């Protein structure tokens, strides 16, 4: 019985580890500046985790194989432990674990401990149940005033733009996020109703949109293309359909798009959505 158990534990370990090793199902290719560092930290962590997991399971299998009850009437080893061992393994794990925790802060710090660099491309994001609204400042670079009192979904004023504000004349609101490549993007995240979450797997980036709060985050996308954008916080019935796209455009194409008046903006984005293809998965 002990040997069967040992073999099964080892086989399960082998199966589990190989699933991580073959990487058939793995991260989609990253497209953001912070992603390589993040992926490296992930790989480092997963290697530590994998080694610890494998060592523990091999050890467990070894114990049940080696120390299964056999015919001889010898008694088990009489010991109550070893303070030396306790100290050693407590220290070693503490160093490794806390070391990982500290190393895990660097990407976080680069993204969250400072504001978006000057010259970032600003977008105001207003999420609502099952729909994304991205508000672009347009040519003048100034966002038109918004007010919750003015929100009216039935007349398609999803974010409550104030018509009376001259700054809004060149603004555009669209359900697709269009950003320039290799330039920092600053998102001001808001929600109209419940908590949503901005999630683009390729960006390795996630942030809740919390009603009543404006949360500013920033990232830099470095690969042109079209990517799926999802809501990753349960927001109600059609949560699984709260989908949009992230378009990362070359600087000129992006600039040209932002200079378009509202109506042309809409048609151009639709055009771009067909021009660019999703990455092959």
């Amino acid at each position, binding site marked *: *019985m002990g040997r069967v158990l040992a073999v099964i534990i080892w086989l399960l370990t082998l199966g589990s580890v190989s699933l991580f090793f073959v990487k058939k199902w793995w991260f989609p290719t990253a497209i953001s500046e912070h992603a390589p560092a*993040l992926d490296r930290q992930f790989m480092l962590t997963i290697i530590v985790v994998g080694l610890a997991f494998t060592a523990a399971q091999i050890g467990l299998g070894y*114990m049940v194989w080696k*120390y299964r009850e056999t015919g001889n009437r010898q008694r088990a080893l009489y010991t109550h432990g070893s303070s030396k*061992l306790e100290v050693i393994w407590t220290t070693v794990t503490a160093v490794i*674990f806390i070391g990982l925790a500290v190393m895990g802060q660097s990407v*976080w710090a680069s993204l969250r401990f400072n504001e978006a660099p000057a010259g970032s491309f600003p977008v105001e994001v207003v999420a609502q149940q099952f729909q994304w609204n991205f508000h672009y400042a347009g040519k003048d670079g100034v966002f038109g005033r918004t007010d919750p009192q003015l929100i009216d979904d039935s007349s398609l004023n999803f974010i409550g733009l104030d018509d009376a504000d001259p700054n809004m004349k060149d603004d555009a609101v669209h359900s697709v996020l269009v950003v320039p490549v290799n330039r920092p993007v600053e998102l001001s995240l808001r929600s109209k109703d419940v908590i949503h979450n901005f999630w683009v797997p390729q960006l390795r980036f996630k942030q809740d949109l919390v009603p009543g709060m404006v949360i500013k985050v920033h990232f830099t996308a470095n690969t042109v293309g079209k990517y799926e954008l999802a809501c990753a916080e349960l927001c109600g019935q059609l949560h*699984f*359909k709260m989908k949009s796209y992230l378009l990362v455009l070359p600087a000129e194409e992006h600039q040209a798009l932002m200079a378009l008046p509202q109506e042309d903006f809409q048609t151009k984005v639709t055009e771009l959505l067909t021009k660019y293809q999703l990455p092959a998965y």
Partner: protein
Amino acid sequence: MSGETHAEVHRHPAPTSFIRKYIFSVDHKVIGIQYILLALVAVLVGMTMSVLMRMNLSWPGTNWPILGTLFPGGAPDGMMTPEFYLSLVTMHGTIMVFFVLTTAPQGGFGNYFLPIQIGAEDMAFPVLNMLSFWVTFVGFIVILSAIFFSGAESTVGPIGGWTGYAPLSAVGQIAGPGQGLGMNLWIISIAIFCVGSLLGALNFITTLLNMRTRGMSLMRMPLTCWAWFTTAVLALLSFPVLLGGGILLLLDRVAGTSFFIPGGLYISGLLSGTDARFPIHTGGSPILWQHLFWFFGHPEVYIAILPGMGATSHILSTFARKPVFGYRAMVFAIFAIGLLGFFVWGHHMFISGMSPYSAMTFSILTLSIGVPSAVKTFNWLGTLWGGRIRFTTAMLFAIGFVSLFVAGGITGLVLGQTSLDLPMHDTYFVTAHFHLVMGVASIFGMFAATYFWFPKMFGRMMNEKLGKIHFWITFVGVYCIFVPMHTMGISGMPRRFAQFTEYEYLKSLHPLVVFVSIAAIATVLIQILFYLNLFWSMFKGEKASQNPWDATTLEWNTTSPPPHDNFAGVLPVVHRGPYEFAVPGAPNDFLMQTDPEPGEVPAGEGSGNGHDGHKH
């Protein structure tokens, strides 16, 4: 002390009426079994829900005629609606976490064995104990009623996940299906559950501090008792916080207050304050709910797993025929886990909008909690090392617990890092992590406990052959279910999606999804074998002796099942630590806690603490 022995024996008579004996019993053993039965019913409901969810995820758009018949609203034409699926998610989580993982390990086995293992004849407050069960029971009825009273909304309960994040859970009907009466019932059920758990925790702590028998010093207690005690302390300090949060949430829903609801919300075409269906709200903080919830929610994880750890230590030692390796380290590790458990709740909220600096602090504290967990694992391996392992079903499940605890716990090193939470948060990686460690590992601990203590509880043995089949398939099954979920999460698959059909990047994962579902259905089906074994053995199992496992602790010092007052009026006296196996020079390979010093045994020994299977 020898001079103060009391001459007379006066025993509490067992109640004779059926109701006092089995229904409103104040006997901790009956209450323990009641808790276990409650968990056995609840886990059936929870598992059924998980099977329904897997069906919907793997074969979307398939017509299941039986579903259409059973839930004409939730699955018209036999196809599940998204809201039906999401209500399954919520109810599965809530029922499993509260009514299975909190009741069976603590209320069930803890209630039954804590008093016996410390040599008490009952809990400190038997009536309170009875109340705690019946309050919990009412909580269960209320959560079940949510299944039926949400019927008009074509759901089987509220939509919010077991975490019920505000303001989705706070604004009411206008936020869509699953936000009506069902949500109120959900909150009320949890509040009731909190009260029941608090009464239980109070009882556990007092009993352990006040009712230990002679010689049962703290450091002579079985590790199970340490685990139950620490669990009770966690419950005592964390459930009130959830209760407080629940009251605030309910007030937001029914009294129009704004604890968690900010101003200026615009939901379903209505601006807050412009319509009777959506009264005016200002200034509430959605994140406040998350803090209150997770301040409870994280200790809750340890409430679920600590008793499993205790049972595993106990069973590993017994069947390795060897003292627990590093008893003191084990006790300190339990304490360290319990203590740190209160300072890591923020790791659920890295990307919630909380300050990134507090996120960093929480992250480092979180990875620190891995240290005592690793220490426990090392000591379990140390306990097996040099042992003479007997592979009973209980032992198999205990070894399985160690394997699964490592598998599930270790990915906490990934999720606990702020940076890595950016891609991993709210994906199947998280689902895999917590199901393995707090779900499956805890349940394995409880399976081990069931096979181990069943003879004591019912006076009959469980069928070992069926038990072993149950173990093999379940063990392989849970690995097949939850390991692939990690890679789904790495690929970016979000939790709580009713379907994966909308996203291109999720389509390549479909074979994995189907594989997991098949493994899940097989694993669930094999549990029928466990139920059959359990109930068949209760009535038809081979008769159990007083100490069938040659174990050492006090519960094996009394009859199987124990009499109404546990030790037939003769409380045992403890002479040594709990895990004295393989003592050199001792006549047997185990010394019971009650055995007097060898060599000093006066003639006629054994009259007071007779135990069979132990011959001098």
